């Protein structure tokens, strides 16, 4: 039985055992419902780091920021509900403020959470949760299956937050899925034109940093403002930017020296200060610099420019990361959340009838292969388990640290055919079987190899 089915049947069993406890039943029902939903991703970080901006960039639509938890989930038509206290949610209209969508929560002063249903492609596979900056790790992670953590540079406070996220017995055995995001990549290097590539280098360095690596699966850099502007670029803005780019490089550079100069009186073009101000707000001074440079380089249609900006801003990489680490691993992430929920019930309301569930829970956490893969990834990345360098990289790839699709596991850069995959898989299997049987290797080495062998064996039926 797959992990998916095992956990689902455990949830049903728990519902049967606890049918006389209204509290436990409500909790379990909610989790059973959640189990069938898309992956929930919480977007967290310190204040003013750009959480809402990143969420908007991912959705591809601009929303005015709210002071509470905002859930964005897929839907056929735009709708919003406000949850306050234990009562039923109120439906509220979604209006527009300027170019932004605004959820009219006006009459409700303090919402626990706002749930927005929005037709967007991104929201088919994920539910995005925009969190307020003062929320504690428990609040943020209570409802989420995975975490996008935004920061400028890795600082102690950020590490503390991530450590708190990993501090639960089940969370420890199945590490929480986190992607760290160096947000505001455009502000790195004081807005130099190559800031984004240098931000990517910094992200790459953090990926190898011993303090950061065990706490998150990946580090990517994103220029949130630019990404959002790219996703929501309007024709009038594009026109204005083209006009700007038509100005001489030297001349424009002078006026792009500072934000004050750009919106100042002595501008050589006949362009309304209000338009310039709007551009500045949407793109930032760095964005204007980059976009005009790009238009000059030949990305002179709106489609070309958008594509280039999505790529440059790091949004593409962030999306790939979400796909590889969250969406593809939906099953194990959901199972993990459900097991955490079950653990809560079993500990809060222990009863004799639930004893079987307790042992089942322990068994699943300890022996489900998906969790063992996660643990091996965590152990290898944290250096608790050491393998020779070339083996380590291959082991990480095979157990799915870089994606769980067979080609990703087997390390194919291109789209291989079934024969090639089978060849590569059998090759890996034989090699790792030899590692697992190597009597001279240390114990943890062999155990890691056993997990890899089991993974390869699990892949075999796909090709036979």
């Amino acid at each position, binding site marked *: 039985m797959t992990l998916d089915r095992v956990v689902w049947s455990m949830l049903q069993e728990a519902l049967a055992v606890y049918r006389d406890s209204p509290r436990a039943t409500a909790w379990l029902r909610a989790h059973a419902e959640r189990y069938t939903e898309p992956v929930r991703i919480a977007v967290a970080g*310190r*204040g*003013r780091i750009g959480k809402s901006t990143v969420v908007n960039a991912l959705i591809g639509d601009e929303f005015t920021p709210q002071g509470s938890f905002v859930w964005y989930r897929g839907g056929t038509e735009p709708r919003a509900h406000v949850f306050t206290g234990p009562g039923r949610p109120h439906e509220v209209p979604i209006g527009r403020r300027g170019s932004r969508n605004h959820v009219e929560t006006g009459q409700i002063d303090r919402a626990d959470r706002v749930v927005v249903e929005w037709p967007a492609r991104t929201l088919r596979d994920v539910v995005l949760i925009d969190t307020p900056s003062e929320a504690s790790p428990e609040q943020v992670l209570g409802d989420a299956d995975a975490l996008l953590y935004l920061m*400028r*540079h*890795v*600082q*102690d*406070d950020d*590490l503390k937050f991530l450590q708190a996220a990993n501090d639960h017995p089940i969370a420890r055995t199945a590490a929480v899925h986190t992607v760290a995001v160096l947000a*505001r990549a455009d*502000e*790195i*290097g*004081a*807005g130099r034109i190559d*800031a984004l590539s*240098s*931000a990517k*280098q*910094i992200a790459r*360095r953090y990926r190898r*940093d011993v*303090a*950061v690596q065990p706490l998150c699966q990946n580090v990517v850099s994103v220029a949130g403002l630019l990404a959002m502007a790219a996703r929501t670029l309007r024709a009038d803005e594009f026109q204005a930017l083209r006009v700007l780019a038509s100005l001489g490089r030297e001349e424009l550079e002078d006026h792009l*020296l*500072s*934000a*004050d*100069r*750009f*919106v100042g009186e002595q501008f050589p073009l006949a362009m309304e200060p209000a338009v310039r*101000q709007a551009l*500045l*707000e949407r793109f*930032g*001074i*760095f964005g204007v610099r980059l976009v005009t440079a790009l238009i000059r380089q030949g990305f002179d249609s709106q489609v070309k420019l958008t594509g280039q900006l999505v790529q440059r801003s790091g949004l593409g990489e962030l999306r790939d990361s979400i796909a590889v680490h969250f969406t593809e691993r939906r099953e194990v992430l959901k199972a993990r959340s459900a097991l955490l929920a079950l653990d809560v019930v079993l500990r809060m309301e222990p009863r004799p009838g639930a004893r079987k569930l307790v042992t089942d829970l322990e068994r699943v956490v300890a022996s489900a292969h998906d969790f063992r893969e996660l643990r091996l990834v965590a152990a290898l990345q944290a250096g608790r388990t050491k393998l020779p360098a070339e083996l380590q990289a291959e082991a990480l790839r095979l157990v799915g640290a870089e994606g769980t699709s067979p080609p990703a596991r087997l390390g194919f850069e291109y789209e291989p055919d079934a024969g090639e995959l089978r060849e590569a898989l059998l090759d890996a299997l034989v090699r790792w079987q030899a590692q697992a049987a190597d009597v001279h290797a240390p114990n943890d080495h062999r155990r890691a190899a056993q997990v890899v062998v089991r993974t390869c064996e699990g892949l075999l039926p796909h090709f036979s």
Partner: protein
Amino acid sequence: MAPPWLDVLDETIGACVTHRRPDLEARLREKRAQQLDPKLRVLVVGESKQGKSQLVNALLNAPVCAVGDDITTTVPTFVQHADTPSAALVRNTSAQGSIYHAPTERIAVPIEQVTKQATAHSQHLVRAEIGIPRALLDSGLVLIDTPGVGDTRSAHTASTFATLMQADAVLLVSDATGELTSAEMALLKKVMQACPNVTVVVTKIDLVPGWRTVVERNRALLARAGVAAKLIPVSSALRLRAAKTGDQRLNAESGFPELLACVQRDIVASADLLARRAVAVVASSALTQLVTPLREELTAHDSSHTAATISTLQEAQRRVDELRRRSARWQNVLNDEMADLISDVEYDLRDRTRKILREVDKTYDEADPAIGWDRFEQWLEDNLNEAATTNFAWLMERAEWVAAKVAKNFPVYREDLIPGSVLPDDLLEPVSRLEKPKIEPFSVSQKLFTGLRGSYGGVLMFGLVTSLAGMPLINVISLGAGALFGGKSILDESDQRLKRRQAAAKAAAQRHVDDFFIKFSKDVRDSGRHIQRSLRNHFSTLAEELQETLLESARSAKRAVQDDQTERERRMREGRKELDRLLTLYKRVQALAGPTMELSA
């Protein structure tokens, strides 16, 4: 002439020495050496990636500190005046020495490589030093660029705080992309404690369209936190570009003229005031640390210490009284219990001997003492021994119980409270042997004689009767009757003798048991009294010891109270004098800072 703050500082150092606070002393000496040094150290601090190094570069219009997109500055970099550009790395040569007073060595490096080299050896380096010819630095100004605070590599943070102690003024850098965070406010407060002269510099205003609101918010934040620090917005990028192009307007836009003026006016020009302020802050913090324990000691002398001594005395006296009251009790218990014990034991003994006597009576109602006297004697002896042993064992048991009971009534518990052995050794002397009763033997001649005497009557009686019938006096009948009569008299006689023997045996047994009883009951009584005496001795010795201890502690407590009084007064006087001295010093320290400064000491 030495400046006035030097005297005050020296005096404070003296106070630290007398109060045995080498830590404070070291800190103050550090400050003193630094203040005597004509250099003015301006520290540039802030979280990482706020543009600290770039600020230093822009101030000097020279790329002296490396700037980078990732974390770049790893050791504090001292930028000071030199006639020709030069650079050196200062290395800590002692393996784990402290940052202060550690032997260091300087390694000269080319100026363009200083950052690269510093990053490579950052764990051994104390600082990097760069010298360049600049008018701004002419007056002895030293700009110190520091690694970012709050970085994950905490060693950097530690070295920043170490340099903070040497700073005369601080520029706290925060960029305009966000208002001051709570971490930055905490940093600001921490900096203020070590060096009161702080200017907040908001950098990167070229990047942020809404930098004016950020500056306003920051001002409000500072005002709310009660921090009297100046706030200057600048743009290093504009300044550097202005320097390149010589554009004065751009330079003005960058905000640097104001910052430079502030540095010149507030920091360089008022070096003496700065020194006084800095000394005032450090000295008053040291003095506060000295005064606090002293004051506590004084108050403790006043109240709690004396109270404690007096309560010890009272406690000791109370315990002596308690002991006296209780010793009457345990003596009564001992007397009563021992009297009970002795009477009980005696009754038990009598009971046991009576049972033996009854057994003896029953036996000699039937049996003949002449047969098996030896066995009887053995039996009696065994029985009596057994009775005596049981009885004595009981006595022992009871005696121990009594000892325990007395111990329970004893005022205090001690390990050796119950005496190990209370028994006399010479108990159970053997009683005199049972004397054999006189048993008359019934010999054959006696039997013959008795038989003849009995048969005589019979022969005569029946001979006379038969002679009437004409038979001779001695005939068969008379002889037969004589034999019958003789036999009967023999039987009668032996029966009587048996009875006599039995009575004699009983009497002998009775006498023996009586003897035994008298002797043994005397012994038991003696042992009882012996036990009582030894118990009494034991417990009264203990009680005396205890009493002596208690009295001694009471006496010492009394002495302590009396001694305390004089000693305390003396120490109080000294403490007060010292406190007064420190407080006067404190006032002088505060006067140093001038009327403009408010000290929260």
